[in-house]
């Protein structure tokens, strides 16, 4: 007797939804004229509204929740398929790679903010630590690049310890101040110091995995694809790994403990929770995610500078987390796609993009404060499917 109130949903609706989404993405990304892109966007909004009205979305959601494993595999396959479709379109691939980088980053911020409730307004700074680690280490050392990516995460986590004490001691808006001040400080520091390239930034070497130069175009037999396919393969793996870890964390006692700390510190303390322990855990792991994503990003981009790591960038990262829904991992994935891709497809709006983006976030916060895909209740579904040995 697991959930007697309803029957198991079929896998079909969610698979259909993913396929529809993938096809839509192909059209959207390939669309060049602004009219087409705009039409597709309006069409999507209308279709979603209609589907919501006919309760199609509920069915999809239910189906996805009941079949997490297969659903996730279908999603990954769909993402891979979309990437392969654009195998020689470097820009679209670059965009998709960027989305995946931000997915990993925002998953980290979601662990901090959505799980344990630590607001990190310096996400871009920790991301930047990863970037700079990669730029400096690829230039001055011969360390394997995979190790450098891990080191990027570790250094970001380490730098997080610098502001750990104020983060732990403060609450609410005072805690916001700590990270805001840190973000401002970090960017100014990068700009005025000379050793890290100052405002001009640094070049970062391209990723090289065990002798495979990822920055080279891919040619296998007759197939010739952009080198970005290689980068996407790597970041897709990292993002999946990050997602699985976050998901496992959510569906475990740790997720519960973190939720408890976020919702009520006093009650948590009365039931034996160590509040600092979970805050430190989430803060450090989240920063690690940011650092890993940053180190990879530096290698993919090839060039980094302080203007990438401003308070404004941190804000965009946080907007993604809130837009997706606090603590909602799938929400983060969807919101990242929207926030990164849509403005890019509307280059014609040029100088109006920031204005519209901000207005959009305001509208969502006003009318759908729970985010696009609100976090579902913890159902320990990933545990239920495991064979028992009790």
């Amino acid at each position: 007797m697991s959930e007697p109130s309803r029957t198991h949903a079929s896998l079909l609706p969610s698979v259909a939804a993913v396929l529809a989404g993938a096809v839509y993405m192909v059209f959207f990304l390939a669309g060049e004229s602004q009219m087409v892109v705009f039409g597709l966007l309006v069409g999507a909004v209308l279709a979603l509204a209609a589907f919501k009205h006919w309760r199609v979305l509920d069915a999809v959601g239910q189906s996805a929740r009941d079949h997490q494993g297969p659903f996730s595999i279908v999603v990954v396959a769909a993402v891979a398929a979309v990437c392969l479709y654009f195998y020689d379109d470097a820009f679209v691939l670059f965009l998709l790679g960027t989305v995946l980088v931000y997915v990993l980053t925002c998953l980290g911020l979601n662990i901090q903010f959505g799980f344990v409730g630590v607001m990190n307004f310096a996400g871009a700074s920790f991301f930047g630590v990863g970037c700079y680690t990669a730029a400096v280490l690829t230039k001055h050392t011969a360390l394997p690049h995979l190790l450098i990516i891990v080191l990027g995460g570790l250094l970001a986590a380490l730098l997080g310890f610098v502001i750990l004490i104020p983060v732990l001691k403060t609450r609410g808006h005072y805690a916001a101040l700590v990270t805001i001040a840190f973000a401002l400080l970090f960017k100014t520091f990068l700009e005025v110091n000379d050793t890290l390239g100052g405002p001009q930034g640094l070049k970062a070497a391209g990723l090289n995995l065990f002798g495979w130069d990822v920055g080279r175009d891919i040619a296998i037999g007759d197939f010739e694809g952009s080198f970005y396919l290689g980068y996407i393969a790597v970041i897709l793996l990292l993002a999946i790994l990050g997602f699985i870890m976050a998901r496992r964390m959510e569906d475990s006692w740790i997720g519960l403990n973190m939720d408890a700390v976020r919702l009520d510190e006093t009650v948590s303390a009365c039931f034996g929770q160590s509040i600092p322990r979970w805050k430190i855990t989430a803060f450090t792991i989240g920063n690690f995610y940011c650092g890993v994503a940053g180190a990879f990003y530096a290698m993919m981009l090839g060039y980094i500078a302080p203007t990438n790591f401003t308070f404004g960038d941190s804000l965009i990262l946080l907007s993604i987390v809130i837009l997706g829904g606090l603590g909602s991992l799938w929400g983060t994935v969807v919101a990242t796609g929207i926030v990164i891709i849509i403005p890019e497809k509307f280059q014609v709006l040029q100088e109006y993009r920031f204005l519209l983006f901000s207005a959009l976030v305001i509208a969502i916060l006003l009318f759908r404060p729970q985010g696009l895909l609100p976090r579902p209740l913890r159902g320990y579904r990933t545990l239920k499917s495991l064979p028992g040995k009790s």
Partner: protein
Amino acid sequence: MQNPLLSISNLGKKFGGVTALVDLDLAVPRNRIFGLIGPNGSGKTTFFNVVTGIYPATSGTVVFEKEDITRFSPQKVYRAGVARTFQRSRLLLPLSILDNITLGDHSQLENGLFFNLFRRRALAAQYRQLLDKSRDLITIFDPGLADRIFEPVVNLPMISRRRIEICRALISNPKLLLLDEPSAGMTHEETHRLIDDILQIKDKIADLTIIIIEHEMSVMERITDHCAVLNFGQKICEGTYQQVAADPEVQKAYLGVD
């Protein structure tokens, strides 16, 4: 008293200039239901908060099971075997019933990062155990809730929330349960149903001591073995309910008789 579970001596608590508890002496006997009576602001909840380590005591000692727990943090007090409910029901509203109850069992669970992330089968086994345990416990109070164990508590009525809160406190098998005004926000009838539940629990668990704060005198009359009355942070009377209810000073302070 022979071998009390909890003994309080000279306990004092001040907030700035305000004195909330003054030289309090109490001895709570084992396996009894101990009532704490007093008008609003007389220091009852403060007493709970000092015992559970939320507020540090200004003076005096709290001894639980022969161990001095006066300076313990809330976490250590919980591990020593003291669990509580709150006057304003404090469940984690967006979470499910199961999660809320599970939280109470923190000391029994494996909380290591490695265990939770990588030893998923062992975790699943622990999870199943806990699910059964929670279901069994909540079934005692209300079998209907056991069926809804994956639903969020935010939609539930007050009596269900109280029951879940008591389950949360009981699941770790504490030796001492502190109930802070369980009837608050409930109807008279609901209150008595809850009292039935508490008495039933008390029957089932041999080694359980309860301290209850309550304004409903009928409740106190029905379930307590022993009562103490506080006023302005001081104990003014102690005895069975009948004894304290008859005490003229108590009547003056609390029952509104001049």
